[in-house]
């Protein structure tokens, strides 16, 4: 049996199609490394991200969830990222109430031209999650038996 195996977190990243997903693609084109622990889900806009998706991820065993959108003022749909920002602020205060470390969720604005920022953000976020360790608080163990 192997002991002291390195903890590899599960990280879900929601990226809007117009800015952050393109930023993630640019990070790839530039060969900017970031950990394989980060898996991206493409959404049309950050305002498509229902706070429930984030709770669901935690319930299913995600250790960190990050949401990326266009910079304020640059939303492809004009106001979507403002809605997303307000919804996430609400969610953060609720996570606080549930006893989830607020560092496990984050909102970042990454434009289509910021490949380097995308990679740097993911490196930094993964390091933070590694520091926090496994998410045990919200994980629904019933989900594991599936």
């Amino acid at each position, binding site marked *: 049996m192997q002991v002291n195996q390195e903890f590899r977190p*599960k990280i*879900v990243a929601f990226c809007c199609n*117009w*800015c952050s*997903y*393109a930023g*993630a*693609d640019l*990070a*790839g*084109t530039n*060969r*900017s*490394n*970031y950990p*394989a622990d980060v*898996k*991206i*889900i*493409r*959404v*049309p*806009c950050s*305002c*498509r*991200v*229902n*706070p429930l*998706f984030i709770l*669901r*991820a935690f319930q*299913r*065993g*995600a250790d960190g969830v990050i949401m990326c959108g*266009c910079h304020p*003022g*640059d*939303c*492809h*749909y*004009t*106001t*979507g990222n403002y*809605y997303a920002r307000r*919804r996430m602020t609400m969610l953060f205060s609720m996570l606080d109430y549930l006893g989830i470390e607020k560092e496990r969720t984050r909102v970042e604005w990454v*434009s*289509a*031209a*910021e490949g380097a920022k995308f*990679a740097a953000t993911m490196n930094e976020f993964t390091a933070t999650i590694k520091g926090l360790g496994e998410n045990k608080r919200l994980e629904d163990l019933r989900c594991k038996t*599936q």
Partner: protein
Amino acid sequence: MLRIGVFVCHCGTNIAGTVDVKAVAETLGKEPAVVFSTDYPYMCSEAGQNIIKDAIKEYQLEGVVVCSCSPRMHEATFRKAVAAAGLNPYMLEVANIREQCSWIHKDMAEGTAKAIVLGRTAVAKVQLNAPLTAGESPVVKRALVIGGGIAGIQTALDIAEAGYPVDIVEKEPTIGGKMTQIDKTFPTLDCSSCILTPKMVECAQNENITIYSYSEVEAVTGFVGNFSVKIRRKARFVDEDKCTGCGACTEKCPVKNAPDAYNLGLSNRHAAYIPFAQAIPNVAVLDKERCIKLTKGKCGLCSTVCSAGAIDYEQQDSFVEEKYGAIVAATGYNPINIDGYDEFAYSQSKDVVTSLEFERILKADGPTEGHLARLSDGKQPKTIVFVQCVGSRESGSAHGCGKEYCSKICCMYTAKHAMLCREKYPDTDVYVFYIDVRTPGKNYDEFYRRAVEQYGVHYIKGMVGKVAPQADGTLDVQASDLISNEQLHVKADMVVLAAAIEPDKSARPLATMLTASMDTNDFFTEAHAKLRPVESPTAGVFLSGVCQGPKDIPETVAQAGAAASKVIGLLAKDKLSCNPCVAHSNEMKCNGCSSCANVCPYGAITYEDKDFSRRKDGTMMRRVASVNEAVCQGCGACTVACPSGAMDLKGFATSQIMAEVDAICK
């Protein structure tokens, strides 16, 4: 459970180099729903697409997952392939295992494991895909060009030539832009005005072109094929239709100390003015900051001398609202403000000028009427020093206004300036201090070599550290020669700074209105850096000229034509197929609360009273939301706002995203 096929692309070694594609195909083949799984070197090739088409038919596939490059790259290609085999094109999902996997991970085991998770996530999503049909929307056959410099002029002319009406919005009182201020153009040294003004006149005379000068875009709504734009026509206090451009108002105007923007403030003009002799439209403007009548209510001389009765002190800003199928951004550039560069004494000495100011000095309609002269004492300079890269290629923010990028045009125009000085005044000593001389382009390096070899311009590789004005009126230029490693002092009569160029300040608010993206330097981002260089990622918005990145006149004209051809291609269509990934409301769940309509940025949601009774007596009337699919852009804001879970987004349904989350966390 749908029958799914998985197709894993090697992309040569781009994917196969760090992802074991065979293992990915094999592992995904064991997923319960997957009935066929394979890999191929190039899925996007015709042979690759045929593998997909054949498998769909042979295995009666109901859903397809392609593990390849970003869906932003080839989603459309694979949708077409899927459709060709008789499957709905939206029964396809792309797992991005190149940009978001093989290119960022170096370890084979790690990359393979991640690719499997990404593939499995796409399989989970496609399981819940539904066939979608794209609607159609009509195309308004009219284009808008924002900016009337050489980029906007060329784009407008090309579109008009193809037979489509096009409007130019220019914020200045005349079209022409920066090129009107330039004396000669490299590498042929032909006169800038001589090649530009015929094009300006052509714009005015072409019946397909409408010029809104002294106007700005106020608001943009709508989408590709159907934009609505509100244009503010700033009050010029002169009736454009009556003014004949005779110039009588300018002659009689008693205000003579307004800085002349055409000469970059190096000379003064009247408060009533026509920007320059060849202005289009050739119509006067009253400077409302300086006109005595408009500021103090007295004077009124211009209206008494105007025989056309065109002066109108009561004129207000007016608005034009027009519909367009396509919009071209051609907002151009400005030299950066170099006041922060104290070491070059720009704000201390009149004889330290920017290159554009030097251009004005050389040009016949400039402040010195084309005579090379110092602005301080009018004397002809005997020694001129040119400093390259002032604010360009500057890392960090030592001056707070430097740019990391190369402004591209400075090496060539400096060679031109140096050459012109030596040609007209052979007794002038000309020095150019440079970091690198960059002259790629047809006949460009030959041009630069001519400046060095034929005209004897002293090119010195090195940086200028300080320009110190001396008591005798000269300038002590202190520099280092990087090749001989010596410190130099040049006693100069004039110093010319090649200031970096930056996008015009109007570009940022315009990008917000157009929802077009920009890079960190405020240049517009293109849809693809290599393959779609004149299109913005926002459909229907095109890019022309320096607003997309630094470029010279030939490149600008080429790009302007490319943008025009894209616009013509769009306007030639009668209808566009809409994005079918739009919101829809489940009437059985909707309680008509209006939460969705309140957040919809497009006003796509309306309410109707519907009868839900099984009998035909209309006793169960309920108010429910209904989405106008032609207006909805598919952002999904409503889906999250809906408290009863009635609103969902096709293609990005709640159940699909939940399935993706589950698959990633498994």
